C-alpha cells in the first residue's frame, strides 16, 4: 500500500474508493487492488483497523492475551492490506459523495474533489445511544471508548468504575479489563428478563453458532471475577461537574453507589450517516431496532455504483465483515470489467458459505440483547440530543402540542440533531421517543433526513473548491 498524507497526493480518478479501514474496508480494498483495480482507501482514524481492530498494527500493549485472540485476527487482514497496491489515506474525511460518485475529501484543513467508478462504504457501526439522566457528565463514557483507550494507548479507566448496559460487547470489554488487572465496582446488566423468552425460539440456530462457545466462556469468566447485578431497570449518573454517584434500580430496589467512571453500552447499530446523506434508501430492522441500508445480495445500495459492506450494512460482526467486504469487492470488479460475472459468482461461493456460518445464531443474539424501551427513549429530564441539550420531555411536549410528526419537523422547533454531531448520536433516540409519544413506530415516524457535509467542513475549505465549468446561475434571494 502507498500511504498518502496530503490531499495533493490523491489521484483525480480511482476505479474504486473504499471508505473506512475496518475489516470490511481493508478486505475489500486488498482484494480489488490485488486484481488490478486502482483503489483508494480513505479512513478518518490515524491508523487502520477500524474500531474492532483499532491500532492492531500499533497498540502499545505487549501482552497479547489481554485483548484476546479474536482481536489479533485483524493482524492478518492488516498485513494483507499493507502488502496490497492500494492507496491508503489515513486521517482523512469524506465529507460528500454525490450520485455521480464525486467525493469531497478533507485532511489537515485542505480539501480535494475526486471521482470514482465504484464506491464501497465500510463505515462500520456505532454504539447505540443509551440516554440516561446525567449521561453528559464528565466521567461517563461509552464502554467502547474505554476499549479504544486500551487498544490505542494502553490506558485503562481506573478508580471506582461501573459498567452498565447489555450486549455481547459488554462482556468482551469486561473480560479485557479484567485481563488487564482492572476491576469493576459493579457491572449493571440491563438485559430485560423477558428477552430470554422471546429469544428462545431462535435458540436452535444459535447452538450451531461459532459465537456460542466463545460467548459463554467470556460470560463465565466475567461472572467469576466481578460483581454483576442483573435485572437493572433504571439508571442515572449524578454529580456536580463530574460523575460522583450512580443510581440504579434492580428488583424494585433503588441503590446509590459511589463512582468515578460509568461506562455505558447497549449494543451497536449500523453507521448510516454517509449512506443516508448520499441518498441511499434505508429500511428499519425490527430485530436489531435500527435503520440499515437497502441492499442487494452483493451489497449494492439503491444508488448505482455505491455498495456497503461490513457492519454498516447491518450488524453481523468483525469476521463476517471481512467476508462481506470481499463480496462487495468482487461485484465492484465485475462492474469495472476486471472480472466476468461468471468469475465473480464462482469466487463468491466459498465466501458465501463462510458467511452463512457467521449468520447462524445472529437472530438469537439480536433478540436476547434488545435493549429495554426505557433505555432507548429519553426520559422526561434526560437529554436526548447532547449537542443541543434537548430533553425527552421537550420532545414529547413538542410532539403533542405542536403536532410534530417526525424528527425532521422537530428540528425547526428544538434544534435536536442540528449540532456538530449532525444527529449521529441522537437519531435513534429521537425517532424512538417521538414514536413512543405518538403511539407509533420508529419505522413510521422515520429518521433525520441527512445531508452533506457528512462531517463539518470549514468555510475556507469550501471556498478553496474550484469554480464549476457550467455557468453559475443566480437569482434574487428569498
Amino acid at each position: 500500500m502507498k500511504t498518502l498524507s496530503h490531499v495533493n497526493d490523491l489521484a483525480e480518478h480511482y476505479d474504486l474508493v473504499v471508505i473506512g479501514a475496518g475489516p470490511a474496508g481493508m478486505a475489500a480494498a486488498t482484494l480489488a487492488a490485488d486484481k488490478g483495480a486502482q483503489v483508494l482507501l480513505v479512513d478518518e482514524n490515524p491508523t487502520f483497523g477500524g474500531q474492532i481492530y483499532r491500532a492492531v498494527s500499533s497498540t502499545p500493549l505487549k501482552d497479547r492475551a489481554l485483548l484476546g485472540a479474536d482481536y489479533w485476527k485483524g493482524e492478518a487482514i492488516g498485513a494483507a492490506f499493507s502488502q496490497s497496491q492500494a492507496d491508503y489515506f489515513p486521517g482523512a474525511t469524506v465529507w460528500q459523495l454525490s450520485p455521480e460518485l464525486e467525493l469531497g475529501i478533507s485532511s489537515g484543513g485542505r480539501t480535494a474533489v475526486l471521482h470514482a467508478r465504484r464506491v464501497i462504504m465500510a463505515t462500520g457501526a456505532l454504539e447505540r445511544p443509551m440516554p440516561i439522566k446525567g449521561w453528559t457528565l464528565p466521567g461517563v463514557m461509552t464502554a467502547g471508548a474505554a476499549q479504544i483507550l486500551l487498544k490505542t494507548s494502553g490506558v485503562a479507566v481506573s478508580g471506582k468504575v461501573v459498567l452498565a448496559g447489555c450486549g455481547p460487547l459488554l462482556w468482551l470489554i469486561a473480560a479485557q479489563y479484567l485481563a488487564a488487572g482492572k476491576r469493576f465496582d459493579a457491572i449493571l446488566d440491563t438485559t430485560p428478563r423477558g428477552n430470554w423468552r422471546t429469544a428462545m425460539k431462535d435458540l436452535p440456530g444459535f447452538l450451531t453458532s461459532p459465537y456460542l462457545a466463545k460467548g459463554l466462556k467470556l460470560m463465565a469468566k466475567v461472572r467469576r471475577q466481578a460483581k454483576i447485578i442483573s435485572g437493572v431497570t433504571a439508571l442515572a449518573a449524578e454529580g456536580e461537574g463530574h460523575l460522583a454517584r450512580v443510581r440504579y434500580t434492580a428488583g424494585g430496589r433503588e441503590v446509590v453507589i459511589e463512582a468515578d467512571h460509568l461506562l455505558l453500552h447497549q449494543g451497536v447499530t449500523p453507521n448510516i450517516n454517509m449512506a443516508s446523506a448520499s441518498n441511499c434508501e434505508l429500511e428499519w430492522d425490527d430485530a436489531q431496532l435500527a435503520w440499515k441500508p437497502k441492499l442487494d445480495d452483493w451489497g449494492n445500495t439503491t444508488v448505482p455504483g455505491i455498495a456497503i459492506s461490513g457492519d454498516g450494512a447491518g450488524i453481523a460482526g468483525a469476521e463476517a465483515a471481512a467476508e462481506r467486504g470481499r463480496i462487495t469487492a468482487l461485484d465492484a470488479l465485475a462492474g469495472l470489467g476486471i472480472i466476468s460475472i461468471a468469475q465473480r459468482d464462482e469466487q463468491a461461493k466459498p465466501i458465501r458459505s463462510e458467511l452463512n456460518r457467521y449468520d447462524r445464531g445472529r437472530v438469537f443474539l439480536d433478540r436476547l440483547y434488545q435493549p429495554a424501551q426505557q433505555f432507548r427513549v429519553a426520559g422526561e429530564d434526560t437529554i436526548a440530543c447532547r449537542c443541543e441539550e434537548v430533553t425527552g420531555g421537550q420532545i414529547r411536549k413538542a410532539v403533542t402540542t405542536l403536532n410534530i410528526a417526525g424528527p425532521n419537523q422537530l428540528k425547526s422547533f428544538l434544534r435536536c440533531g442540528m449540532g456538530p454531531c449532525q444527529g449521529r448520536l441522537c437519531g435513534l433516540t429521537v425517532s424512538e421517543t417521538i414514536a413512543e409519544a405518538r403511539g407509533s413506530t420508529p419505522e413510521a415516524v422515520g429518521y433525520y433526513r441527512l445531508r452533506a457535509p457528512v462531517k463539518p467542513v470549514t468555510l475556507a475549505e469550501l471556498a478553496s473548491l474550484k469554480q464549476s465549468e457550467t455557468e453559475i446561475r443566480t437569482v434574487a434571494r428569498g
Partner: protein
Amino acid sequence: MFQRLPDPSGSPVSFTLDGRPLEGRQGDTVSSALLAAGVETCRSSAVSGEPRAPYCLMGVCFECLVTIDGVGNQQGCLVALRPGMQVETQIGRGKRELAR
C-alpha cells in the same frame, strides 16, 4: 482517573495544553493523551456552558472538541498526537447563546 498499563511500548511525545507542558505516548490521539494526563473536561457545552468530556472516542459524538495549533473545534479523538502540538481546551468559551 486513568492509568497507563505498566510498561507499554511507544516513545514519549511532548505537547502543551493551555501552555502547560505535558507528555503523551506515540500512538495516542490528542484525546487519549489528555485523558491519560488526567484531563477529562475539555470544553464547555455551546448551549448551557456545562462541562463536557470525550464520550465515544470514535468520531461520532463531537464531545472531545479542542483547539489544536490555533484551529478550534477539532475532534481530538481523530487526531494523532504529534510532538510540539499546542492543544487548548475550550472551557468557558462555549456559551454562545445571544441575549437579544
